[in-house]
């Protein structure tokens, strides 16, 4: 295994970890405010579809991104109304959103485009292209000619879609907002002890809705990334369980932004290795490809079975807030 191979696996890791990271941060915002959200998957899927559909019809990827975010925020709002205003069960509402998105996207796609539940393939102009930093090579064959530093710069640092950089920026931003601002303190308090926040005269409902909307925006970015950057168009069920992996990463990360980044990168790394090495030969013994592809999921089980130590969720998570009378 030469140096370039390692750089390429890391490059692939970043690409594959980005949707996970965005969804994971979305879940973090929502759950920190006490709203459990297993509807990340559904929101990503809806955003993926609408971003691709609008990017195709208007030809503008930015309008597509906007449409994806709107769709995702709409579903988030639905979850908010069900679980905050009407105090419904948050898990059931999340499941409902997953089903709704899985079914609706295909039905609408079929009605609009008649291509069997997918959007037409996007042209290069209506996708997020890769940003090439100054002095970086773009093609793998040119990159192979460079020195180690150049390879890291051209392959790993340059040449990603803008959403990848946005996702990475979201980590410090989330950390700052949650831990260094008054809004963040209150938001975290709402997830731990909403009664105390209410006593202090701050609106619990308002804060929870704010968290849910932020969650929707981040899921929208994740979905748009899948359909307009990683792929060229929407296909049925294209989120492929990433929303659930993101939830696992969230628990792995103990609901903390920087840990979330490392957890998502780890899951991305295993995915990338599984793609690259289909059969790994260890001496006489060959690790089969099925094992490599199952690795991210095996990892989820092992990690959640106790390797992370005790992951304590926000104390008021999953419980609708009722004012005492």
């Amino acid at each position, binding site marked *: 295994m030469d140096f370039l191979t390692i750089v390429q696996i890391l490059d692939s890791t970043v690409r594959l970890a980005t949707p996970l990271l965005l969804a994971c941060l979305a879940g973090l915002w929502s759950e920190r405010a006490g709203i459990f959200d297993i509807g990340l998957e559904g929101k990503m899927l809806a955003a993926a579809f609408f971003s691709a559909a609008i990017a195709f019809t208007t030809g503008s990827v930015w309008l597509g991104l906007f449409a994806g975010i709107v769709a995702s925020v709409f579903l988030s709002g639905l979850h908010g109304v069900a679980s905050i205003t009407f105090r419904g069960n948050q898990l059931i509402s999340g499941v409902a959103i997953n089903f709704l998105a899985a079914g609706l996207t295909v039905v609408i796609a079929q009605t609009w485009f008649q291509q*069997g539940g997918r959007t037409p393939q996007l042209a290069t102009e209506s996708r997020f292209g890769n940003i090439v930093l100054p002095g970086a090579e773009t093609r*793998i064959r040119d990159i192979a000619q460079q020195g180690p530093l150049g390879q890291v710069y051209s392959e790993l640092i340059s040449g990603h879609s803008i959403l990848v950089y946005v996702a990475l920026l979201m980590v410090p931003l989330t950390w700052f907002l949650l831990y260094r601002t008054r809004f963040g303190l209150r938001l975290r308090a709402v997830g731990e002890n909403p009664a105390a926040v209410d006593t202090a005269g701050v609106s619990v409902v308002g804060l929870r809705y704010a968290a849910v909307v932020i969650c929707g925006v981040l899921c929208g970015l994740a979905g748009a990334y899948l359909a307009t950057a*990683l792929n060229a168009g929407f296909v*049925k069920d294209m989120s*492929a369980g990433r929303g659930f992996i993101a939830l696992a990463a969230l628990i792995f990360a103990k609901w903390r932004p920087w840990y979330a980044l490392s957890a998502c990168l780890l899951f991305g790394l295993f995915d990338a290795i599984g793609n*690259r090495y289909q059969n790994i030969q260890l001496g006489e013994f060959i690790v089969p490809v099925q094992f490599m592809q199952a690795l991210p999921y095996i990892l989820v089980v092992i990690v959640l079975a106790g390797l992370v130590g005790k992951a304590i969720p926000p104390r008021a998570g999953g419980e609708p807030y009722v004012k005492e009378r």
Partner: protein
Amino acid sequence: MSMMKTLMGAAAALALTATGALADGPAVIFDLGGKFDRSFNESAFNGAQRWAEETGGTFREIELQSDAQREQAMRRLAEAGANPIVMAGFLQETPLSVVAPDYPDTTFVIIDAVVDAPNVRSVIFAEHEGSYLVGMLAAMASETGTVGFVGGMDVPLISAFGCGYAQGVVAVNPEATVIANMTGTTPAAWNDPVRGGELTRGQIARGADVVYAAAGGTGLGVLQVAADEGILSIGVDSNQNYLHPGSVLTSMLKRVDVAVYDAFLAGPDVETGVHVFGLEEEGVGYALDEFNAELITAEMQEAVDAARAAIIAGELMVHDYRTDGTCPVQMQ
């Protein structure tokens, strides 16, 4: 209550007319990649569509959503009186062998698999021969001497594509390296363009400058990445040259459309038994049109056509992976 009755009555009447109007026509069942996968299933659809346009007839169709629906779909069409029922895809083999004996008066046509029953017509293609030809083209177009292959689901059929391709490559350039990857081991591997793209990037990194995708919808991701990275790709089943003009070297044509069209045209009396569509029957081949005319030189065409003639004449034998599960060419 009466409202409910009216509604139910209307629904029942609708259901009756729907089956009545369409009974006795032919039907086609598409596999999991979806009707518009721009590849295998779309080719089947095009054949059915051509028949409908030429004869003015109508046909029924079912697009499968999951493995569990296969048997149900066949039974539903058979009960509704559709005849013949054409199904695309080797995954239909097991359910069909269960269903076919139950409907002795219905003729079934299965593409890509063999079911031994008196009322089944099995159509198989000599994919290894077509792949051999595109393998030759790949080796002639390659500058690095390394070419790639991305398969869909890891099954003998797809290995036959890869093995024929590798033989064609080595026939032109004995020193060439063939890198082969499979997308997955479940039917989801037909519809995973992200993974297809990642596999292609990995192959390019290892020096491949022509990549052949035999992976249904996953192949779209392969062709996309090949176009982005400025290398050549080879499409499969349908003619995919138009997807990325100038980047798709050629497509390995598998005339599923002809198989469907023939079956529809012959109607319920279509001849049963095993039918092999090879180079001679023009069941497989390579695509040449205005989108890749500049990529295929006259010499390349000459060499490939000579090989084609030799295979048809029986002078050149392309090994079929499916006969013994091995490939004479080592792939990486």
